[in-house]
């Protein structure tokens, strides 16, 4: 992990309130697995903002982030232009452990702005010859992004809250008809969604990627803990995660 002033190569709106940001810098070299994140310092804000690495390319030294405007910090971020510098700390956390994951048929379940880290994962798994089925959930059609990209990797099911794209409902809805078609699942999204997914698929190996408000983002402050069922009793999302095996954490 390092702190670097990265250069903005590309910055574009790709869906409602959703932006793609491409940064160039040396810390890309340190990325180990999809699902890791970077911690962005935005001018005028006290705490850094964690954003997942949606894609990266070590040969060109670039990393792609996809973020949604949620509050003042992400709103201010939209005003940064190509050519400007951004103070980045990263890469942080433990991603999806590509080397130890055993899967032939992967189910990817992403909710909204939880989808970006799954893109990089799906790309890697696809390149390894893994069959991929994706379920992507959005609020509505205007919020949808990365759908075409996921379709390149395999079958995609879309759900929206209002039914404006795909079927109306939650990402958990298609799961019953997908039973038996996958051996491992990978999911990222709001905690209630992660809980619903991991409860539905409790007998199948799964990896979940979590979000929590962070202080340091490097494991020192204990702001980002989640309960674990072992003697230690907790995991820090910023450094033990954000990706965990589903049985490693207790979701509430």
């Amino acid at each position, binding site marked *: 992990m390092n*702190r670097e002033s990265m250069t903005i190569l590309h910055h574009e709106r790709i869906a409602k309130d959703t932006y793609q940001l491409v940064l160039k810098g040396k810390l890309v070299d340190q990325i180990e697995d999809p699902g890791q994140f970077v911690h962005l310092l935005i001018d005028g804000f*006290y705490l850094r903002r964690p954003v997942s690495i949606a894609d990266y390319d070590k040969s060109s030294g670039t990393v792609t982030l996809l973020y949604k405007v949620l509050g003042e910090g992400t709103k201010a971020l939209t005003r940064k232009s190509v050519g400007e510098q951004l103070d980045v700390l990263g890469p942080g956390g433990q991603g999806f452990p590509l080397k130890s994951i055993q899967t032939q048929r992967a189910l990817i379940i992403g909710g909204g702005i939880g989808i970006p880290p799954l893109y990089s994962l799906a790309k890697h798994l696809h390149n390894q010859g893994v069959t991929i089925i994706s379920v992507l959930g959005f609020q509505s059609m205007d919020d949808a992004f990365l759908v075409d990209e996921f379709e390149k990797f395999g079958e995609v099911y879309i759900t929206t809250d209002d039914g404006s794209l795909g079927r109306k409902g939650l990402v958990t809805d298609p799961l019953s008809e997908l039973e038996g078609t996958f051996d491992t699942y990978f999911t990222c999204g709001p905690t209630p969604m992660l809980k619903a997914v991991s409860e539905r698929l409790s007998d199948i190996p799964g990896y979940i990627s979590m979000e929590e408000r962070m202080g340091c983002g490097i494991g020192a402050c*204990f702001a980002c803990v989640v309960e674990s069922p072992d003697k230690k*009793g*907790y995991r820090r999302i910023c450094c033990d995660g954000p990706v965990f095996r589903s049985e490693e954490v207790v979701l509430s």
Partner: protein
Amino acid sequence: MNLSVNLPGLSLKNPVMPASGCFGFGKEFAQFYDLEELGAVIMKAATGSQRFGNATPRVAETASGMLNAIGLQNPGVDQIITDEVPFLKERQVPIIANVAGSTVEEYVTVTGKISEHVDAIELNISCPNVKEGGVQFGTDATLAAEVTAEVVSASHVPVYVKLSPNVTDIVEMAQAVESAGASGLSMVNTLTGMRINPKTRKPIIANGTGGLSGAAIKPISIRMIHQVYQAVDLPIIGMGGIESADDVIEYLLAGANAVAIGSANFKNPFICKEIIDELPETLEKYGFSKIDDVIGGAHIEKDPTHLLRS
């Protein structure tokens, strides 16, 4: 330039150290720079047994600062001694243990154990984020004196009492712990605050209230140190919102003998090292040739020499 400072139990190569709770037990920051560059390391709070802390969210951003309610999560004093202290001991850097508890007995037990392994104790009677103890001891002068006296007698090393700013009269608190035998003061801990999310109509932090830290609290801490410096005869470790070498000078001028940097480590993990590197130049900029000349300087500056420096 010689940056060294000598305090009870602590011979510091420079006056800068990370503040308790903002630096873990040092391991995470050792990937960024050599911890031996630091004046000392103040460890995260230790309690008698393992604590899991509060529900999340535990932090919230504020204007020029942040709120936190971690709730003293730590593995307990025994595990800190076996698993965390050795890593710091391998390095040439003084170690200060932050001691917390719910009862006087807990403070005494933790101090008795951990003081055999460190250079000084920072007695945390000011944590606003736990239900029992903590800040209760820090807002009542009689209780503060009582726990200080017990801890001082249980400790093998000098005790610095960390004062809470959540009091009407900080001088009264400082005097109470001075007469109870404290070797120094650590000023200040966080100020109790709250933020409410208009969408949920609930406090952002699960605990409700949290402790405010960061640049927002610096003027309050400076004022309190300025007051206490005149009223007690103890060395002071100053903290609250330090983000630059200029801030360090401000603290020393107010009366601090050394400083600790907390939340700024989250913004910039290199902050302590960067400030240490900038200190000589900054001292020179303001016409100082050693740290000792700065300490309490705001109290002795009577002649108009400042005109030459402005």
